[in-house]
């Protein structure tokens, strides 16, 4: 069947949970069935059609949410395939636990964007809230795969307990970047807030300028790293950040906790 378009009927009176509203789920249902889907909203579970005009749209396997809203939570949560496009902002937990597919957000995203992402791709045109790519409450591991691309800036504790995958931030990253990071890669083109990398075990933070790091980081000096040349050519998302020269200052930590993570300051 063709794609689906959700157009909000009015401003939302409470937070809406769009968990499970994915192209895969919708493609198995008829339009009337989709309209009757119960959606948590505040303390109620109204039908989807009570909140949105539901229409067929162009593009097989595509779900378009027109307008977007900062009260729309869990947009694309659990997405395993297909594409969700939001032409506005989204609330918290967008793309949480995604394992495949593409989530494009034209506006800003709330907290826990791409939390525990294991595959697929998230693109956010605006800023992201706190804990992007991180672990949610009670979880030991954050993002473990896939790509999270934030074209604005990211809030506090970006990549907290990240286990794998790639996060690229075009703007700044707030305090606590990569706290307790386990593995994976985060690239931040702008400035990095205080206490980055505290408790870092493994993983790589790519930075353009030297951030304020905890005492557990040791400076190994400046090196010509072939790995950076490889990343610049093999990973298109990093091509803009890496100039291909391969030169970087390498700081290793958090050694106070036995960690071997690294902050690579480019150029």
């Amino acid at each position, binding site marked *: 069947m063709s794609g689906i378009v959700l157009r909000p009927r009015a401003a939302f009176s409470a937070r809406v949970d769009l968990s499970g509203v994915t192209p895969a789920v919708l493609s198995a249902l008829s339009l009337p069935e989709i309209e009757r889907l119960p959606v948590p909203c505040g303390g109620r579970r109204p039908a989807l059609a009570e909140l949105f005009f539901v229409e067929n749209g162009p593009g097989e396997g595509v779900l378009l949410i027109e307008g977007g809203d900062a009260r729309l939570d869990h947009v694309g949560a659990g997405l395993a395939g297909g594409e969700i496009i939001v032409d506005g902002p989204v609330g918290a937990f967008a793309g949480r636990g995604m394992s495949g597919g593409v989530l494009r957000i034209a506006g800003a995203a709330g907290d826990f964007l791409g939390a525990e992402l294991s595959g697929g791709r998230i693109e956010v045109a605006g800023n992201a809230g706190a804990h992007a790519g991180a672990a949610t409450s009670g979880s030991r591991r954050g993002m473990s795969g896939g790509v999270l691309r934030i074209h604005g800036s990211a809030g506090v504790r970006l990549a907290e307990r990240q286990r794998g995958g790639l996060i690229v931030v075009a703007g700044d990253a707030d305090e606590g970047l990569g706290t307790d990071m386990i*593995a994976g*890669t985060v690239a931040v083109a702008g400035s990095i807030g205080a206490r980055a990398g505290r408790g870092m075990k493994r993983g790589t933070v790519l930075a353009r300028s030297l951030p304020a790091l905890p005492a557990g980081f040791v400076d190994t000096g400046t090196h010509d*790293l*072939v790995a950076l040349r*490889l*990343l610049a*050519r*093999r*990973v298109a998302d990093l091509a803009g950040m890496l100039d291909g020269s391969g030169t970087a200052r390498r700081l290793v930590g958090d050694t106070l906790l036995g960690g071997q993570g690294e902050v690579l300051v480019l150029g």
Partner: protein
Amino acid sequence: MIINGVEIRDSFAEAFPMVGTRLIITADTAEWALIAGRTTTGFATSVIGCGCEAGIEREIPAEETPDGRPGVAILIFAMDFGSLKKVVPLRLGQCVLTCPTTACYAGVEGGKRVPLAKTIRYFADGHQISKKIGDRRFWRMPVMEGEFVCDDDTGSVEGVGGGNILILARSRGQALAAAEAAAAAMRQVPGVILPFPGGVVRSGSKVGSKYKALFASTNDAYCPTLRGAVPSALPAEVGSVLEIVIDGVSFAAVEQATRIGIEAVCAIGAAGGVVAIDAGNYGGNLGPYHFKLRPIMAAGTAEAAL
């Protein structure tokens, strides 16, 4: 069939299935990439004694390599996948890891996976760093010179080993000149290697020996100094025979190399002392791939006429 005075004998090369892989080795300079490639493919002329057959497929300009440095592509072939999985990490560890400035990348995407850094990463003694982005993983291994970067594994192909041509010439010098020309032309074919020294074999073998311990022995029917003493395949005017062995990633690649090699020899022709082109086989009962010289050259001639 006679081309430019050279007889193309009604014979065929008998080849065998082999399992192979391609590695892309880069370095700070083309010279060091070539040194790594030559070292890694050294002592790899025949599976009989070396465990694998390997060679440099081509040099790669910097703009085409994964890290933007000059490189070489090498092909390594073994008789079965188990052997390939053993020899590739061994050569990688001894010849590429040790070579200044090099990095090593997968040169084949599909097929069964052959371990690269997946095996040798332990040399880094816990300081190895894995980086997996998308579905590709590579490793960074700290070494005294800096870091050795290497893909986790590479793919493999079911190729063809043992394609060959025999160049029968009037003298040793003329045979060598023809063989050098053929090898130079054949190296331009993508997907093939000529694993013997300079691409040329002077000691072609037959199966078996009078000595029980040997699987192969000198191909006496083509030894000019034995003509008359044994059943010989050489006419009186032939004073020297050289062989070119071809391994390739596909039947088509080996076939193309065969044709181009023969064309290069025939371009030298009878005037250059070449008498005939022949090929080594075992009667057709051992190897499933037969490269029949006359049909190959007839097809080449037909293509050229089009």
